[in-house]
């Protein structure tokens, strides 16, 4: 069902290695990833790191036990409006995991925190036409978003607690 997304070219799923040279793109296409996944893999948006200790930054760090993937998603929140103004991610894992976190980093920008915790892994998976075997990658991205928000809120709470003393 997911595979028959209208008008999208899809080849059956495979496993890509994290080499980032141009030939890898062609290889990945041959091995079979949806073009959006390949796009995110080759032109990842928002790769990078924010300062963990910055009070406006929330860091979500999650891992998938089945494959040993690590995913880090960071958000910068505007305190006054509660809006996420910037996001960065860093993921070590397969192409689907990288693409999922890249999509997540795009989608959280400009949104309120209450909005982003409502982002479902199924939406990410659908957007990337992930095969069933890679659904856990999108789940990981959803968990990363929640973890980042949770971290920010915990920091804010601690800051307020300190201010009260």
């Amino acid at each position, binding site marked *: 069902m997911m595979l028959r997304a209208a008008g999208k070219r899809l080849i059956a799923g495979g496993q890509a290695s*994290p080499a980032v040279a141009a030939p890898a793109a062609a290889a990945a296409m041959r091995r079979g990833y949806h073009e959006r996944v390949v796009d995110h893999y080759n032109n990842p948006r928002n790769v990078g790191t924010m300062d963990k200790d910055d009070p406006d930054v929330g860091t979500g*760090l999650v891992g998938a*036990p089945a*494959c040993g993937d*690590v995913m880090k998603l960071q958000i910068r929140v505007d305190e006054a409006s509660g809006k996420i103004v910037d996001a960065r991610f860093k993921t070590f894992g397969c192409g689907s995991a990288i693409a999922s976190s890249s999509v997540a980093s795009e989608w959280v920008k400009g949104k309120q925190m209450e909005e982003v915790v409502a982002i479902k892994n199924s939406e990410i998976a659908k957007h990337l036409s992930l095969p069933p075997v890679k659904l856990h990658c999108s789940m*990981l991205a959803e*968990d990363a978003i929640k973890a980042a928000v949770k971290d920010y809120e915990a920091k804010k709470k601690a800051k307020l607690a300190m201010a009260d003393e």
Partner: protein
Amino acid sequence: MWRRARTGPLRLAAAAGGRRAGRRALPPLPTIPSSSVASSSSRIFRGSVWAPYRTLSSEGGASGRGGECWNCGATGVFLSCGSCGSVQPVDPAVDYFQIFGLEREYNIKEHSLEGKYKDWQKKLHPDLVHTKSEKERGFAAEQSALVIDAYRTLSKPLSRALYLLKLEGVQVDEEKTINDPELLMEMMEIREAVNDATDSETLEKIQSQIKRKLETWSETFQEAFDKRDFNSAVEATQRMRYYERAVEETVKKL
């Protein structure tokens, strides 16, 4: 020899539709003690090969470990018959440790596996049963695949650990996301270091560091498993998987 010759023409007759006639044309088999084996044997010579030997496998007791050889009736057969050499159907009750004659434990001598593995393949490999019946070739394919699986699972620490847990009936929820910040931050740093490393010396250094950690956690698994503390054991395997993944990345780069 004579039996195989009879199987040939019989099968052709069966294919031609002369099924019942073919069966009756077969002279009585040499006396096979238990009635269960006798009834399953008659099914063998019926016609199509697939259905019968699957039935045999599900019967379990009639063949496989300690059971009777479908070919000559000798008892105490294990994977293949000690008397006539015929490959037996797979017995699902046999576990990988039994195949290699080992105790069901984590600390095994990995180097002893290879010898036993080769011995088994000499008896079970499909390439060595060209002249035998289609049924036996089918058994050989399955048994030899089983031995390969067993060898691969037992030779690596992580897969061996996970297999032991599986035998104990411990369910490992692989879907659940890990949130342990300490482990994840450590893995992040390691993976970043591997990613940034440019020369083989650095990579080898990182690799040996990770391998040492793997060993530590391997020992942790051993202790936890022996104490039957399965939660800690599972946790140890998760760490091992992360470290093994990191080692794979260094190998890829080297």
